[in-house]
């Protein structure tokens, strides 16, 4: 059933308020009851975005402090020459963990966490569209992150640097489990980040206030949308990279071992294809925050809104053309380097546009010098300096001089602290009144800012010089007389100043932060956006329609009318949790989404997922497999309660708008999520194909290597035929399941059931063909690449198999029919993707070596 189109005359700005007063008795109480989080131990099963968001932010900040403590130990070690506070082995673990935890456990989760809290409020949505997915992402990150950090106390932490270059991290040079902790631990935390990104994309596009068209979308939402798309495109590269390196370490598949046709540079390409966009992945949400804070503090609309949106989109694109600028010293041809140099300088243009837009906004209003303002000004100063040195290292000849020196350490800290940490602290001071009974202290805030601003500059400004006069990064000590002593001592003093600032912040937090979802401090800044509406666990009492980008400034009675329930969906029509799904461009109401409430499933699924990866790290394979099976079981349990179907007829949400309580097809939120998941899968596969081609490039005359026979065409052709037949069966099943009469024909499970062995057969046939030809995955990179493509396909086929069996089970339980068919649609989409990937894989593995004729 598709959602009905609204009348063409629909214009929220011109209508009377949708719902009259007084509101029916008990309406508000029912709404409150539906959104109330559980009490007692079950409190941890809460999925409200405010609770999960707060836990998420808190955990990310905990990791910031922990990684900061590691930095202080390192600075103490470097305060004087030939110091022996820590050994070189521990120092290696310290700098690896500091970088890894800051980047993977603090920076990305922190901005994702803030958006879990802020986005629904800012868009006046009741919640994000998949609250249990948010909870799953958080708990997986929480459990996995803490265990990962705990390795530092047992000498088990990774020690190969935060970018883990092989061959240093290969089995030959890092035989212990330390590197595996990084590869498996970080790999699955990336999966948690992707889960969050899917949530954000669908949330921004599908759950907004009525009338919040794209041109009225808060800049923060734009920033988070670009951020999430970048995660979807960029993170699969590192997931694949960690997978390949772990397969090399565990099974001796030589992707990065030069003696057997591998190439360590492949890792660098995969890592930095993720790693450079990662900088912007962290930076863009921070700019989104700044674009919300600056207009409020200047009490004037943001200057150049459209240019800022352009800058966000352009930055998102261009940042994927920069990755090789981390590899300028690897001997690539100058022409190739010049492309990345060009992109590195070009990306400064959109960043500059944003900076000028903020300055113009400050100039056009009267900026109040509050603590958030101070942090924004600090951000502009520090980030601009980092950006300038960024342009310097974007020029290859300069980079060759500064590479791996403390100059680079200074540059990256100016960019990351300026571009992310300062905006985040501005955001803390700015948004705490929306989450707490009391605002944070302005007086203490100025101390926090002062200490941190001075601390950052005292620490990192001298490091430019330390680097330029020759001090390499990642050395645990240095001899007397190199001219580095005083500079290092100053940097150490600065680091402790930053720590003092953070300590004052913690004190302020302990003194003033009192979490509430019912009676917060209110709109203390006279801000213009919807997160400052009166709210509760249900977010806003009714869902407003807005007519401008600054609704609280331009619609004077909005807060009161929303709170009285005069806008859309002031109660609950199904008795449970609901959100209003809107169209992606025009924010027209499309249907009422029945939002799942609290449950143990996401918590347990996250725990078992974390356990699966962590146990695998320490080679406890059997318990790990059990945990993996339990994790899948919990996910199935969780999904079983979703896809509720149209539990009641279409309902009036106010203003004469009658909406269905269920919808399928492209209008459905889970359809969107599945499309995004397919893009993620497609990117993993694309990166794998890139790896295959890269390895071909570095193996002239050995693709395939001598003595390796390419299987006859007949077998891949047969496998392709099976894939196509399988796709046809699914298409027929989909056709059989059409109609508005709630039919559930018996042929559907039969067709799906027949398709299951076909898809398995196709994949197994290809695997068997390679094995039977005598191809070894560990003899040469060619075999490793071929088996990697085949193995990835096996994984997708097994997932399709599980989804197919689940779909059949839904039919058997009477939970699948021609109207209630979201489960089938999701399976169908994934199935088509798997078939497409299988066909491309066959073409690559069997066609490419024939095409190139062993060149």
């Amino acid at each position, binding site marked *: 059933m598709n959602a009905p189109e609204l009348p063409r005359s629909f214009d929220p700005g011109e209508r009377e308020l949708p719902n009259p007063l007084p509101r029916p008795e008990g309406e508000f109480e029912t709404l409150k009851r539906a959104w109330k989080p559980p009490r007692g131990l079950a409190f941890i099963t809460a999925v409200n975005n405010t609770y999960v968001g707060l836990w998420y932010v808190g955990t990310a900040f905990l990791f910031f402090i922990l990684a900061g403590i590691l930095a202080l130990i390192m600075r103490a070690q470097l305060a004087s020459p030939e110091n022996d506070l820590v050994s070189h082995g521990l120092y290696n673990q310290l700098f690896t963990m500091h970088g890894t935890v800051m980047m993977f456990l603090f920076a990305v989760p922190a901005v994702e966490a803030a958006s879990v809290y802020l986005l629904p409020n800012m868009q006046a949505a009741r919640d994000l569209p998949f609250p249990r997915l948010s909870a799953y992402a958080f708990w997986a990150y929480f459990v996995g992150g803490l265990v990962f950090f705990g390795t530092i106390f047992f000498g088990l932490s990774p020690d190969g640097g935060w970018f883990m270059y092989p061959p240093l991290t290969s089995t030959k040079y890092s035989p212990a489990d330390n590197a595996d902790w990084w590869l498996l631990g970080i790999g699955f935390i990336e999966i948690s980040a992707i889960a969050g990104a899917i949530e954000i994309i669908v949330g921004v596009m599908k759950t907004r206030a009525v009338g919040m*068209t794209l*041109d009225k979308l808060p800049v923060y939402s734009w920033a988070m949308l670009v951020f999430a798309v970048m995660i979807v495109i960029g993170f699969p590269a590192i997931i694949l990279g960690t997978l390949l390196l772990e397969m090399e370490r565990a099974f001796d598949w030589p992707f990065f071992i030069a003696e057997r046709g591998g190439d360590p540079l492949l890792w660098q390409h995969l890592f930095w294809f993720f790693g450079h966009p990662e900088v912007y992945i962290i930076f863009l949400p921070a700019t989104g925050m700044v674009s919300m804070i600056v207009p409020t503090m200047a009490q004037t609309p943001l200057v150049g809104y459209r240019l800022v949106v*352009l800058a966000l989109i*352009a930055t998102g694109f261009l940042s994927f*053309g920069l990755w090789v600028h981390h590899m300028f010293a690897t001997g690539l041809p100058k022409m190739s380097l010049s*492309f990345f140099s060009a992109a590195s*300088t070009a990306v400064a243009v959109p960043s500059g546009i944003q900076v000028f837009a903020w300055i113009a906004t400050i100039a056009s209003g009267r900026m109040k010098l509050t603590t958030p303002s101070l942090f924004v000004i600090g951000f502009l100063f520090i980030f601009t300096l980092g950006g300038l040195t960024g342009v310097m290292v974007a020029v290859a000849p300069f980079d060759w001089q500064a590479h791996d020196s403390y100059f680079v350490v200074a540059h990256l800290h100016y960019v990351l602290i300026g571009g992310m940490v300062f905006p985040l602290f501005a955001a803390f001071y700015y948004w705490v009144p929306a989450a707490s009974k009391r605002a944070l202290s302005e007086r203490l805030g100025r101390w926090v800012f002062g200490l941190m601003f001075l601390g950052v500059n005292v620490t990192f400004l001298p490091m430019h010089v330390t680097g330029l006069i020759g001090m390499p990064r990642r050395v645990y000590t240095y001899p007397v007389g190199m001219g580095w002593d005083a500079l290092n001592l100053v940097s150490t003093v600065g680091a402790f100043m930053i720590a003092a600032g953070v300590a004052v912040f913690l004190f302020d937090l302990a003194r003033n932060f009192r979490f509430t979802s019912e009676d917060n401090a209110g709109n203390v800044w006279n801000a213009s956006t919807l997160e400052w509406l009166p709210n509760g666990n249900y977010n806003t009492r009714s869902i407003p329609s807005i007519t401008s980008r600054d609704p609280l400034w331009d619609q004077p009675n909005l807060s009161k009318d929303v709170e009285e329930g005069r806008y859309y969906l002031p109660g609950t029509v199904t008795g449970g949790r609901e959100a209003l799904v809107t169209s*992606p*461009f025009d924010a027209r109401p499309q249907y009422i989404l029945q939002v799942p409430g609290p449950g143990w499933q996401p918590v347990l699924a996250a725990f078992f997922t974390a356990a699966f990866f962590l146990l695998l790290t320490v080679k406890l394979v059997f318990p790990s497999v059990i945990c993996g099976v339990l994790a899948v079981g919990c996910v199935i349990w969780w999904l079983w309660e979703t896809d509720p179907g149209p539990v009641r007829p279409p309902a009036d949400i106010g203003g004469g708008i009658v909406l269905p309580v269920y919808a399928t097809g492209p209008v459905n939120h889970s359809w969107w999520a599945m499309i995004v998941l397919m893009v993620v899968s497609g990117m993993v596969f694309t990166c794998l194909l890139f790896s295959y081609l890269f390895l071909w490039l570095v193996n002239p005359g050995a693709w395939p290597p001598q003595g390796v026979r390419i299987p006859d065409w007949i077998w891949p052709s047969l496998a392709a035929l099976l894939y196509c037949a399988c796709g046809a069966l699914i298409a027929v099943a989909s056709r059989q399941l059409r109609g508005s009469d709630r039919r559930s024909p018996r042929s559907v499970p039969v067709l799906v059931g027949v398709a299951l062995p076909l898809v398995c057969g196709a994949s197994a046939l290809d695997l068997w063909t390679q094995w039977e030809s005598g191809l070894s995955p560990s003899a040469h990179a060619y075999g490793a690449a071929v088996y990697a493509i085949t193995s990835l396909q096996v994984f997708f086929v097994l997932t399709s198999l599980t989804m197919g069996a689940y779909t059949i089970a839904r039919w058997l339980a009477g939970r699948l029919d021609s109207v209630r068919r979201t489960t089938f649609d999701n399976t169908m989409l994934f199935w088509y993707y798997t078939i497409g990937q299988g066909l491309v894989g066959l073409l690559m593995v069997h066609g490419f070596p024939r095409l190139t004729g062993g060149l």
Partner: protein
Amino acid sequence: MGGSRTGQVLLMLAGLIAWAVQFTAIYGVTSTLCGRGWADATLLGMEVVPMTILSATFVTLAATAVALVWSFRSYRQAKRQPVAIVDDFISHAAVLVNGLSIVVILWHGIPAFILPACA
């Protein structure tokens, strides 16, 4: 402003997509030819590497220019007719994005005139 929403989004992103195509083509071809020692390969009497860069730059530049003209027309049309503000916003964003993309694509084509192919 006519056209589907998907079409509008594609038009808005056309220049950046063209840049991505140019970037992939020039980096892919340069890496492959240099990596395989085929730096001196010629086609129709011209070295393949600079020819690829110039061709890819020209084609993507032309495509972006078409997108820019098209989006500019849509923008002017949106200004003249009573259309939804979101249409005006998208067409304006398309003009800005495609305009910026022209500069970026040109910027990436310049090395072909300055640097040797595989040194």
